[in-house]
Structure formats: structure tokens, C-alpha cells
């Protein structure tokens, strides 16, 4: 799983969010390291929707502009959980090889 995909799914794991909310949340989660732009975000959302990992939620109009919310599906949650397990296992191996006690990196 690519990092933007992982971060988008992580942002949505806490609850449904609209596009701009996802962008700011991803920046917050990654500590400002990953800044998604609209083109990348909507291309990713399009793919995630096609893969059944994300689905559209409610819509609202704010300041005359459409806001559509997205939420993670059960399949998306399972995929994210599997990725978390994989990353955690890799991190544990890396930490033990580096001799970091308790895997604290």
C-alpha cells in the first residue's frame, strides 16, 4: 500500500470526512511531511472507491459550495488493519536488529 493511500484510509478510520478535511488530516497525521493536493487526493479517492475501500457518505452545501463526505468501508478497514500489522511486524524486526529496547524508535 502506498503512503498516500495509507494516510487517507487512516484519516477516514476516525470517521467520515470531506475532501479538504482529509487533506488537512493527512498533513496532521504525517506531521506535515505529506501534503496531498486536490488532483492527487481525488485520483486516490477515485481508485479507492473503485476498489471498494472507500465510499461516499452525506453531502452538504457550505458557503454555496458542495461538500461530499467519504467514509471507509469494512473492506477498507480490513485492508488498513492488515497493512498496520505488516508495518508493525517490519518495524519490530528493524527495531530488534538495531538493538532498540522495546522497539522504541
Amino acid at each position, binding site marked *: 500500500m502506498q503512503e498516500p493511500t495509507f494516510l487517507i484510509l487512516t484519516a477516514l478510520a476516525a470517521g467520515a470526512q*470531506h*475532501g*479538504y478535511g482529509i*487533506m488537512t488530516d493527512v498533513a496532521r497525521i504525517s506531521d506535515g511531511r505529506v501534503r496531498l*493536493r*486536490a*488532483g*492527487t*487526493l*481525488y*485520483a486516490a479517492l*477515485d*481508485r479507492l472507491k*473503485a476498489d471498494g475501500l472507500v465510499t461516499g457518505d452525506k453531502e452538504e452545501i457550505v458557503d454555496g*459550495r*458542495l*461538500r*461530499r463526505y467519504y467514509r471507509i468501508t469494512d473492506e477498507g478497514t480490513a485492508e488498513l488493519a492488515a497493512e498496520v500489522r505488516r508495518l508493525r511486524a517490519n518495524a519490530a524486526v528493524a527495531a530488534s536488529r538495531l538493538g532498540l529496547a522495546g522497539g522504541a524508535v
Partner: protein
Amino acid sequence: MSVTATRNTRAGGRARSRMEKRYRRLLALYPKDHRREHAEEMVGVLLAADGDAQVRAPKPVAWARRFGQHTADSADLIGGALRIRGRMALNRLRQTRWLSLTVRDQRWSDALAVVSVVAPLLLLVAALTEFRIPQAVASSITGHPHWGLSATLGLADLPMAAGAPGVTLLVFLRLRRLAGLGALATAVGQIAAGAVPAFAGYADPAVAFTVLLSCTAAVALLLSPGPDRGLALLTRSGAALVGTGALILGGFSVGGDVWFGSEPPRFGGSGGKVAGLPADLLIAAVLVGVAAACLRAPVSRRVLALLAVPVIPYAFLWQEKLAADLFGQARDGSAIIPSSIPLLYLPPLLLASLILTGTWLARRRAGGRNRQVGSATSGPRSPVSA
């Protein structure tokens, strides 16, 4: 509100409107359905992001930052449109149902599926060795003076130079039918290249090998379920066999190139031959070993039969090399059996005809048996798999 503030607000509104127009123009690059679904939302997100990016700074600094932000957003919008359009085009190609012919016999179908993975890989290895890529790598490692990279590509080289990597890429993208047509075009291109005077000629075993390999790849890709099924069937030992075969082909070509070279192949002052009689025997032994391993299962036996069609001309290359290693003469004078078009192409064609006739007869026999069983039991007729 002061006059200056009002003027600033109006200027800001005009700038936002200009920006919105620019974003909308770029959104026109997106597919219609995507635009209908997301355009308004995306404009909202772009403008919200732009609003957040506004900073209190001296005018030139603020302008530079906004310019940078707009440029990055515009590039990202174009990139997003290309990604979505590319994905849609790929999906359309994958879902196309044209040329949906498949072999009904399950074992032949599976064998063709395995060959649809192996043949494009071998074609790529053949192309790489033809253009001396492994030789150049080996040269950079060993410092051998006679293995240079072939820098000039002639017209006759184009079918392989474009076809082999193209077919591999299409296989990787899971575009089976397009890859099959690509392999067919590669074969046709190589045959057409025979008209070019500088061409090595049809009587060259290496040319016969690549022409027949392209044809085999085309048949396997067009008539089988495709590389996905082939990869699912390839066991770890099967993959090892494929890898060994590809390595031998590459190594053989490296050795062959040294031997075909005008100057004797020597490493510096050591004087040792790179590919001598031991290498010939090793190649033969490993190939026989690979073939023997393939004889154990019905599908791998069929894979072996299918791959033997293009590999037969390599036997001629091998015997020429063996003769040179034994007698130490130049290739043309030393070949036990000189290469000729009938010798290179007739045996593979005969083998292909045998495969076709054999499967046709097997299907007829199976049909006959089924009819007998059907009339004896008077029950519903079972489907014929062959």
C-alpha cells in the same frame, strides 16, 4: 470598513474568480463522469486550500508563495487527470472481449498459460543478449575487452528492440490480448526485416529462435487464460526452471558472442576460454536436466513441447559452437550440420503440426468415448473437456 479594506476585498474576490476559472479550465482535462461527480467539490477544496495558504508577508514574498502554490496545484490537477484517464483506458482494455478464443483442453490451456509467462520473458532475454546488454554488464564487471555494448540499432533490429520490451510491459500490465498481438507483430516485423540487406538472414539460428519464440508467445497469449493463470500454476520449482532456462539462454548468448567474435576470447593475459567445451557440456546437461524435470507432470510435459518449437534452432547453434570448440575453427567452416532455412524451420513446424494433430485426435477420441457412454447410459451427455 475603510476604502482600502473594501478595495482589497474586491481585489481578492477578483483574484479568486480568476483562479476558479483557471482551475475549471484544468478540470476540463478530467473525464466527463468524474467532472460531473467531483468538479464542484474539487473547486471548493482548491479554493479552501488556497485561502489557508494566504500568509501575511511582504507583497513580493506573498505573491511568490501564491504563484508557487497555484503552479503546484495546476501540475497536480494535470497529473490527477492523467492518472484517472490512464486507469480508465487500462480498465477498458482489460475488459475488452475481442479475440476471446481459448483452448478447451484444460491441460493444454494451462500449459499455454505457463508459456504465456515464460515466452515473453525469454523474448526479453533474447533481445537483451541480441543487443549485448548482459555482455556489456559482464564486460564492466570482468574488464573483458571484446564485450562492448552494441550502440547502433539498424532497421532490422527494430522489431526486437521495440517488440520484446513492449510485449513484456503489456504482459506486466495484464493486457493479454494486446501483448499477444504485440508478439505477433514482433514476429511479422522480424520476418519483414528479412528484406533488409544488412539483416543476419533467416538461416541464422538466433533469428529463427526469436521469430519462432515470438510466434509461440503470440499463440500462448491469445489462446490461453493468460499470465495470471500461468503464474498461479508456476510452482517454486517451476519458477526456478524458468529462471535457469532464461539464464542459460543469456549465458549461452554471452558465450556465443565471445565465440562468434573475430578475436579469440581471452581474459587479459590468462588465456582461458570463456565458453569452451566444458561450457557446452554444462549447457547441454542443464537443458537436459530442465527437460527431464518437465517430463514429470502432464502440464509441464506440454510446456516442454510448446517451448521446444522455438528452442529447436538453438540446437543448431549449440552444435556449431560445439564443433568450433572441438575443432577450434571459425563457425562457418566447422559446423557439423550447416544451418539452412529448411533445417531451422521444418523441425519446429513439424513439432507444431504434431502437437495440433495429437490434440485433435485426442479430442476426437474423447468425443467418441463420450458418445459411447452417452448411448450406453441414455443419460444426459457429459461435457467434453478436450
